[in-house]
């Protein structure tokens, strides 16, 4: 798999029922494969991170980014969609 298609989705906000379900449903509907997923509570906030692969999806990165932001607004959490390299660069020598 090309590394360029690896994207980090991060979700931060007030915990509520169905956040993971909502995000995963969107990903599955758009053929976006989840490679890794972790979730915790940080400083009282629901915090989730997913590493996903966009290479099987018909949608462009910007479109996925826009739609996920919209979903975040609907359920009251902040959803970010970023290329993985920025984290690799910053945290790996």
């Amino acid at each position, binding site marked *: 798999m090309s590394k360029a298609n690896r994207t980090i989705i991060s979700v931060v906000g007030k915990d509520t029922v169905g956040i993971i379900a909502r995000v995963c449903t969107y990903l599955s509907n758009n053929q976006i494969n989840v490679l890794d997923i972790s979730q915790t509570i940080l400083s009282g906030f629901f915090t989730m*991170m997913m590493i996903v692969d966009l290479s099987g999806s018909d949608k462009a990165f910007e479109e996925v980014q826009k739609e996920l932001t919209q979903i975040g607004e609907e359920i009251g959490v902040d959803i970010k969609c970023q290329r993985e390299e920025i984290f690799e660069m*910053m945290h790996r020598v």
Partner: protein
Amino acid sequence: MINIFEVNETNKMVEEQNLDVRTITIGISLFDCMDSDIDKLCDNIYRKITTVAADLVKVGKEIEKEYSIPIVNKRISVTPIAMIGSSACKDTGDYVRIAKTLDDAAKAVGVNFLGGYSAIVSKGMTKSDELLIRSIPEAMASTEYVCSSVNVGSTKTGINMDAVRLMGQIIKSTAEATKDNSCMGDAKLVVFCNAPDDNPFMAGAFHGVSEADAIINVGVSGPGVVKRALEKVRGESFEILCETIKKTAFKITRVGQLVAKEASERLGIPFGIIDLSLAPTPAIGDSVAGILEEIGLERAGAPGTTAALALLNDQVKKGGIMASSYVGGLSGAFIPVSEDQGMIDAAKEGALTLEKLEAMTCVCSVGLDMIAIPGDTSAETISGIIADEMAIGMINQKTTAVRLIPVIGKGVGEEVEFGGLLGRAPIMPVNSFGCGDFINRAGRIPAPVHSFKN
């Protein structure tokens, strides 16, 4: 694989600590635009800039989105215009025409500053150099985006005191010419010693003669991130303090390296350098003075400031150098007074004086930067301040610069507002004893000896 805490740390740096990439600057050579006909020259310049930098803003925005990292400025630097106009320009008006062409080109591609309305006169001035310098007040008054710089000295050549004297007068005239706009012209005019060819930061950026046809240079930022990291090691030893700054500088610089690499690939223009800088903004928490306070000073300017700044600057370089494949430009912590809330407060409270700022410039990048002084300060006194700062650069083999704004009609205790990233500045007092007989001597200060160091 990246973990959730690392993702969280990076995103917090951006959301809460003002981490950003300060600028992507395309350096563009204008040598192939030269012509003896001024109309043709201006056409060539406009065409070249708008072609090479056509996609700069678009690509910058794409990168911002994909990585969720703000890229505050997209800018252009060009070959020093004194050279480019040397054959075509017969008077100062011809040079102003080039300035207006540069302004139009900057507007067309959507950048917020274009640097390189410059002359390199460290040893002597050609007729065209002098024409360009004399055109600066009108050029600054009739353009919005053009930045100007003049290099008046270097370690190899000494200081061109004729140019230093002239620049005192030019800074005064530029203030007069732009007095209805907060004397803004002088906020876009820098006097240098040992100016680098690859500086991406304004107002001093120009595309030096040693550079390729076009190049991408990136300036990073992040004082807020360093401050936050240091909050966690309050009271710890110098070893821990320095390690923390280094690690943070590494992370900040890596983002710059990524952005530079991406911009270079997408624009098809080679990557030049990363400028390892802590560049403050007037935003709360984005202050280099704030870091100095966190290190342990009550206010920037207190005894210990020069040592703390020296330490900070050195650790930023040590951390940043490994994070980037090529380092250049000014590289260091910036201390512009008007652009740093902590510096503004320190100056207002009397903790920070012009003399202390001069001492601080011995150990950091870059010089007396964005300092407002009384509008009635004489041209000789301004030249005296420039000469002092140039001497520090010449002797210590470092880049130094002066960006002073004599605010016409205002005196000590008053304030001037520039707006945006340029911020606002309290008018600082200047030593009132004269230096006219020194400044009015003709010629240059010889190059220094590099042995017998003291």
